[in-house]
């Protein structure tokens, strides 16, 4: 009796062990597959906002998220793109000095933020630079160096106070004929804010969005870090790396993106609205912020201001700044000390 009891016990134990092993293997395989699937990412590249946009999203719901992001980008592009004659901005520009135009709430929003940023940057960021951009040929590619008289004449058309926004009736009016809005320095950052909202709403697992050099990194894990490089302004590769967390926006303005050279001098597309001439203190300026439109605007302002003023300005606004001058000297705000790594050029 005792022997058979022992025999039965042993049999059961052995079989249970095998079953347990197989079950464990199945569960492990399933977990690995699930882990792989949920970390799989989708990348998408689209052309919009007059630039190239790279979208990378991970997680089970990534397709839906990419779809929503693409739709929002195209939607905002339809409002802000001044090359599209039907956009809100084009309609406003075409009716300058004539009549006010009814626009979408997003257009009102971005223009109000633009006015606010004009004040904050002491005029270094100005969405009324359209006529100046045209004068230098940056709209058509017919680059030219205008005369001082021509510049002074056109500067009269860049008065921010001529931008009249009626928030109640959702209308915008440019007072003088010839005035033109250009949202090139804020549209991408503004759109990234919307993208950030979409990522949060959908509980995205992880995402890296690069909109023509304006970067947003996102992770459901607030402690996860991303390595974002800053392009070297004069050579291939990167000049520095920023180790940042979810919800960080990194925007860079450089003199290598759109420029022409005449008589050995480089004229880039970032024009100082106060002087009417392209800024030339720096080769690259980066703003590190937690708001998209702010970063986009500040990277332009930093670029125009130059290194010293940028650092003071960045400190006042509690944002990060990195500047590279004509001799490739790099300066950055103290809050980036633990975050930035300067690449060694061997």
């Amino acid at each position, binding site marked *: 009796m005792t022997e058979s009891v022992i025999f039965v016990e*042993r*049999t059961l134990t*052995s079989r249970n062990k*095998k079953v347990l*092993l197989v079950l464990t293997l199945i569960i492990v395989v399933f977990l690995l597959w699930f882990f792989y699937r949920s970390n799989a990412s989708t990348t*998408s*590249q*689209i*052309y919009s906002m*007059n*630039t*190239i946009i*790279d979208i*990378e999203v991970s997680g089970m719901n990534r397709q839906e998220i990419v779809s929503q992001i693409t739709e929002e980008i195209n939607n905002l592009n339809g409002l802000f793109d001044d090359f599209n004659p039907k956009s809100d901005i084009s309609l406003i520009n075409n009716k300058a000095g004539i009549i006010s135009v009814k626009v979408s709430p997003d257009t009102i929003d971005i223009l109000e933020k633009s006015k606010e940023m004009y004040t904050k940057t002491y005029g270094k960021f100005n969405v009324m630079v359209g006529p100046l951009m045209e004068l230098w040929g940056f709209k058509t*590619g017919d*680059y030219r160096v205008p005369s001082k008289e021509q510049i002074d004449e056109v500067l009269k058309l860049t008065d921010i106070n001529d931008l009249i926004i009626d928030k109640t009736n959702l209308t915008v009016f440019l007072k003088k004929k010839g005035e033109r809005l250009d949202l090139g320095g804020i549209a991408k950052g503004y759109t990234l804010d919307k993208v950030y909202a979409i990522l949060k709403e959908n509980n995205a697992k992880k995402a*890296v969005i*690069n909109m023509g*050099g*304006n*970067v947003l*990194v996102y992770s459901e894990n607030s402690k996860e870090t*991303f*390595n*974002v*490089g*800053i*392009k070297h302004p004069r050579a*291939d*590769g*990167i000049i520095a*790396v*920023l180790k940042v967390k979810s919800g960080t926006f*990194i*925007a*860079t303005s*450089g003199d*290598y*993106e*759109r*420029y*022409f050279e005449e008589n050995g001098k480089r004229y880039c597309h970032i024009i100082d609205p106060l002087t009417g001439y392209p800024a030339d203190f720096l080769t690259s300026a*980066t703003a590190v912020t937690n708001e998209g439109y702010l970063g986009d605007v500040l990277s332009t302002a930093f670029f125009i201001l130059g290194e010293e003023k940028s650092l003071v300005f960045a400190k006042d606004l509690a944002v990060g700044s990195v500047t590279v001058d004509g001799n490739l000297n790099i300066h950055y705000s103290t809050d980036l000390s633990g975050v930035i790594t300067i690449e060694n050029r061997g």
Partner: protein
Amino acid sequence: MGLLQLRTGDKIILIIVIVSLVCGISLRILFANGSSKIVLIMVDGKLFEEIPLSVNTGHNEDILVESKEGYLSVEISNGKVRVTDSTCKDKLCIKEGEISKVGDTIICLPNRISISIIGENSNIDTVSY
């Protein structure tokens, strides 16, 4: 007696599975190292071609990349990539010069063509420019 033999057999199977897993993973890691750079050419947002970028050969390659908007010529030689000719107006893609590092990109916006260097071993998530 019969039970003990089965157990040993189980153990053997288990050991074989673990050893092959370890071998498989090690091989993957070993082969992933080295210069596994790839030139990624995208046209209108879609993949056009992927070309491995080998560093040492005197191997020259010229590729004509066409999009709906125009075309450009890409030269790949000695591990470096550059645009030699383009129908775009501002020729910024040509002015960009040569690229060779993972994460580098040449973009021809008017032609909607992007040429980037990707690789497995880069720890850079993206580049702000």
